């Protein structure tokens, strides 16, 4: 435990969340991170649909995708589902 965590008098009662869930960077759980080859990628967005964390964003204007490593837990589903094998799981 780190020193910056609050004491029992400082937190709301009843287990009420005082931080949004996005304040917890669950991305640091991962061992392997997805890395995409933009040349192979066809922008089919299968990875966006399959990502259980919603951690792959579709950027319409740029016609591209972006991994959000703050929340990607490294499950590898995107790499497994990619029809053109454009995603590789690399050890962090």
């Amino acid at each position: 435990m780190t020193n910056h965590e609050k004491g029992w008098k400082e937190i709301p009662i009843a287990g009420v969340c005082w931080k949004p869930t996005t304040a917890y960077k669950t991305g640091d759980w991962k061992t392997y991170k997805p890395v995409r080859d933009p040349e192979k990628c066809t922008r089919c967005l299968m990875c966006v649909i399959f990502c259980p964390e919603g951690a792959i964003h579709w950027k319409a204007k740029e016609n591209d995708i972006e991994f959000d490593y703050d929340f990607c837990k490294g499950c590898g589903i995107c790499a497994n589902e990619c029809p053109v094998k454009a995603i590789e799981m690399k050890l962090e």
Partner: protein
Amino acid sequence: MESVVKQKVLALNGDEAVAYAVKQSDVDVVSAYPITPQTIIVERFSEYVANGEVDAEFICVESEHSALSACLAASAVGARTFTATASAGLALMHEILYVTSGCRAPVVMAVANRALSAPINIHCDHSDSMVERDCGWIQIYVENSQEAYDSIIQAFRIAENQKIMLPVMVCLDGFTLSHTLENVHVLPDGTVKNFVGTRQFPLVTTHEGKNVPLRLDVENPMTIGPLDLPDYYFEHKRQQEEAMRNAPEIIKQIHEEYARISGRRYGDGLLDSYRLEDAEIAVICLGSTAGTVKTVVDDLRNEGVKAGLLRIRTFRPLPIEGIIKALEKVKAVAVMDRSMSFGGHGGAVFHEVRHALYDAATHPHVVNYVYGLGGRDTSPSQIREIFNDLQKILETGRVKAPVQFVGLRE
């Protein structure tokens, strides 16, 4: 200082007295599942709802686990809620008892104390509520139906107090109180409504950084009681303990405020004693047994024996300092337990009273009598035997057996 309000006298059994008090306490939601000997509470209250005598929602459910879950959810959106159960029903609620106290939902529940199976038994003992003493609920044990009525009304105020915010269990002895007709003085509807008031909510800081009342509200979304990992679970439990530590003074204040209106007092609201001031020997018990003990105390006093009674009204929070003070001059104490702690060398009340007295300047002898399991009748002659044992301890200075069973056939 308010004066005592003129009151009606109704012939009510304990369960009916509870239902009547709930009707007057401006509740919004009641969800309960019938189980002997609590059934009458649910029957009467559902009649009040069906007859339009009370502006409350009655939610029918398929089990006690669901009954308390429904109350917890309704309480979380800001409703004043009530439920009632007994025995196996309370055991089935076990998981949600902890969820309710952890979510700081001020649910009020009546428990018509009944033995736990097996063998199956519908009659009174305290096994069902004693086993729940660590679940974070305040526990009030009442002596008669009048006190059941009075305690339910006080319970809403206690539970919803901003410094407490804990659920409250009002325990009444099954059949002995639940099904026995008594004259019960009832306050006028308006008096009770004013006394309980409207529910208040403590402010909490949400994930949006807002300081808002603790209740589910679409305008101010919040998450109550989600996953709590090793980093904060301990802190939340400490908060619940703090609420319990705040409770005794507030329970006393609310009890006193109620006493000024109703003219009825039960000791200081935590402990109720009878002829204890100069007593050398005393019995400690909970619930309706206190009535029997009082008659024996009177008989012994007439014979010149300095006997007394200490009734624990709030077993949670346990009034440790009050117990020490009440027993200051007593030389031998018998604690009566109406439940077993198998292999625990005595019952729960005995354990806790002895624990309290460890810090006292002088220790009386403290012995334990397990009694009345499964509704076994406890007669004045049995209580007298207990006092006789205490006198022998006083004379010889020796305890023969620290834990005994009274009313048991060998």
